[in-house]
């Protein structure tokens, strides 16, 4: 099947100008792809560049070389060179991203945060509302919290709001950065189930899962990021 995401010779280094211009090589010559229904799990120790790679795919970090092709309707768009407004449009309709931390506008209630993410992703407003309630229930976020801003929630509750928000829309590409990091076994199982639903719906997923149990359940392929460690000259 045609891939929805294809990384082609992607390289990235950070230059820290405030620290004598130290250069931190992150990854070099990354090549892999994700097709509909696949879940590509990025493996390797902490510091190998897994999160950075996801951020590069999402357009949050730039890359120094290579291409990140993502299917947008009938076209393959290169995130590496796309205009900001194109990347923002793709984030609305094409690619979703669930980070390790909830970063939202303060002062907005949890349910509204999730429903708004659904509307932004193109769901009808009633569908967004219903699905937001469904996902928060599935993820065991107590109903009495729904109208409250998540700033005061526990880490696990915030993370579950974050997952609901990241998964609510029907985007064809999903990037998951340790969505199960601070969850208990019961909620990890819910996330595994949601990921399986997305795969069945033909979504291409690239994810980081430290929990081996979760990884074994959801992974179609594991890509070992240490293979892309920058070659020392």
């Amino acid at each position, binding site marked *: 099947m045609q891939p929805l995401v294809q990384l082609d010779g992607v390289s990235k280094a*950070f*230059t*820290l*100008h*405030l620290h004598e211009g130290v250069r931190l090589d992150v990854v070099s010559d990354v090549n892999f792809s994700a097709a509909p229904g696949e879940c590509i799990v990025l493996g390797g120790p902490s510091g190998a560049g897994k999160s950075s790679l996801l*951020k590069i795919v999402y*357009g*949050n*970090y*730039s890359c120094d070389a290579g291409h990140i092709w993502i299917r*947008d*309707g009938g*076209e393959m768009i290169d995130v590496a060179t796309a205009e*900001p*407004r*194109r*990347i*923002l*449009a*793709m984030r609305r*309709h*094409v690619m979703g991203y669930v980070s390790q931390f909830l970063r939202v*506008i*303060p*002062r907005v209630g949890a349910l509204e945060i999730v429903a708004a993410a659904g509307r932004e992703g193109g769901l009808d407003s009633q569908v967004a509302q219903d699905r937001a309630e469904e996902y928060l229930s599935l993820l065991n976020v107590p109903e009495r919290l729904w109208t409250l801003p998540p700033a005061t929630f526990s880490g696990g509750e915030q993370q579950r709001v974050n997952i609901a928000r990241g998964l609510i829309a029907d985007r064809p590409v999903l990037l998951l950065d340790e969505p199960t990091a601070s969850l208990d076994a019961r909620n990890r199982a819910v996330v595994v189930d949601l990921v399986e639903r997305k795969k069945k719906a033909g979504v291409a997923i690239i994810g980081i899962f430290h929990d081996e149990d979760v990884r074994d359940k959801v992974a179609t392929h594991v890509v070992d990021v240490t293979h892309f460690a920058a070659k020392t000259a």
Partner: protein
Amino acid sequence: MLNDLPDAPLLSVRDLTRYYGERIGCADVSFDLYEGEVLAVVGESGSGKSTLLSLLATELEASAGSIRYRMRDGIARDLATLTEAERRLLLRTDWGFVRQDSTQGLRMSVSAGGNIGERLMAVGARHYGNIRGTSLDWLGRVEIDRGRIDDIPKAFSGGMRQRLQIARNLVTHPRLVFMDEPTSGLDVSVQARLLDLIRGLVSELGLAVIIVTHDLSVARLLSHRIMVMKGGRVIEAGLTDRVLDDPHQPYTQLLVSSVLAA
């Protein structure tokens, strides 16, 4: 999904330059702005960001370069070729300008309702009842007690004045709004409410906005794109979260590392 992006920019700026004698105000600035886009211009004082805003708003004449704006009839015009009457009409109807200093953006001795109504009259509204009704409606939208319609802005707090400026500017349904440090000098809680209000209105009305700010957290919250200026030049530009999370230029890295949490 390609079709949901407009092809023609609303504003198209090329090599915009302004000298103050020998000194550079701003130099070689080029960018396109599309409907619905919020562009933040960041940098320290003296970086040229205010000069740039004045040039764009045609308050200052450029030494070189061009600004093209797509008028409501769909035709892009070089702003330097507009007649004075055309320029004034643009400023009063299709554009808005929310200023840091509310005494420059409001008529301080005219009532709140009059401040809003004046812009409406500039686009031809004459019916007193309609003007007052629309003014009341806008006071509500910017969360000012409607009972204050006959009060003058001198009697308003700083946050209320900024909200009144926003109402005054948006009442004519402009397509492009300039904002110069609209939240600086306000208490943090007042600033937060104002930012929420601006965010909501901008996305609801699909406005194009150019906002000058030295506050990176304001830029993060409101803007889609950032241009970083230093010494009159744009040294880095791109998607807001890219520039703030993966800054490339030494100066941008310094700016980002200097805030606690942007």
